[in-house]
């Protein structure tokens, strides 16, 4: 058995960068009793060649950039012990990596990459800040504040809850365009902890809060019809 994470569909160039930065392919050798391991790889191929016919003996210009990195990270996880667990490699080495490409042919562009392995690489806040800096070595105060908060809570919304909330989001956008008079219903439907429906969208509502919001929205016939049409 071999399991690989794919990122075949991405929402934005920034998201693509995230996937490139991730570039981590965990392989689980599930058919044997061998210990699992993580393989972290990155690769870049960028090249330009300007040339004329060899018979003219005109000069050629070439620019190339070809590199690859590979890290084999052994872990303590043995799939024979717990095949159902998605984690279990608590003693694996920690890896953080990033690759950024920014117009290498401009005066200010360039390529840079960061790769660090080890517990300190991901546990120390300084490492997170280092990786969040842009190609000029700068970090905006707003970004720094967001990273600080992210490192503190690390809240993750369950994917099933996220899908259920997304149906409400779709209904919200369709209502805004088709039934704008009813849009206020969305603000009224969310739990008191959320100041508005947009706060509900950017927050981490519980499964119950999502269910309650949907129930309240379905009390409106128009919104109920819109919700029923969303697959």
């Amino acid at each position: 058995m071999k399991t690989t994470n794919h990122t075949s569909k991405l929402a934005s160039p920034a998201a693509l960068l995230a996937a490139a930065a991730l570039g981590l392919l965990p392989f689980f050798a599930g058919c044997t009793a061998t210990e699992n391991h993580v393989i972290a790889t990155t690769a870049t191929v960028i090249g330009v060649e300007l040339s004329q016919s060899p018979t003219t003996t005109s000069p050629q210009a070439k620019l190339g950039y070809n590199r690859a990195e590979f890290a084999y990270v052994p872990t303590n996880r043995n799939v024979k012990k717990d095949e159902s667990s998605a984690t279990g490699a608590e003693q694996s080495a920690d890896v953080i990596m990033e690759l950024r490409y920014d117009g290498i042919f401009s005066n200010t562009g360039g390529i840079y990459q960061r790769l660090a392995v080890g517990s300190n690489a991901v546990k120390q806040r300084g490492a997170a800040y280092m990786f969040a800096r842009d190609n000029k070595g700068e970090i905006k105060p707003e970004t720094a504040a967001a990273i600080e908060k992210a490192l503190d809570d690390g809240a993750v919304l369950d994917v099933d809850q996220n899908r259920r909330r997304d149906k409400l989001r779709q209904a919200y956008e369709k209502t805004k365009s088709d039934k704008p008079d009813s849009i206020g219903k969305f603000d009224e439907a969310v739990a008191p902890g959320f100041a508005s429906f947009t706060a509900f969208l950017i927050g981490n509502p519980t499964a119950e809060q999502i269910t309650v919001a949907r129930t309240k929205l379905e009390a409106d016939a128009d919104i109920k019809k819109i919700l029923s049409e969303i697959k």
Partner: protein
Amino acid sequence: MNTLHKTIPFDASFTAQLDLQCNAMRAAGYRLVSSFSVVQAGVVSAILIFQK
């Protein structure tokens, strides 16, 4: 300018989570401006930075 973050796991749900989070944040007027990844205790996550 408001800045928010979202943490999503880099597992089989990664692509779906990426779409869902970006759509939700976009509906609230935010756009994805930065991202980076971390691996802790064998679990890979991506931290997405949004700004409005």
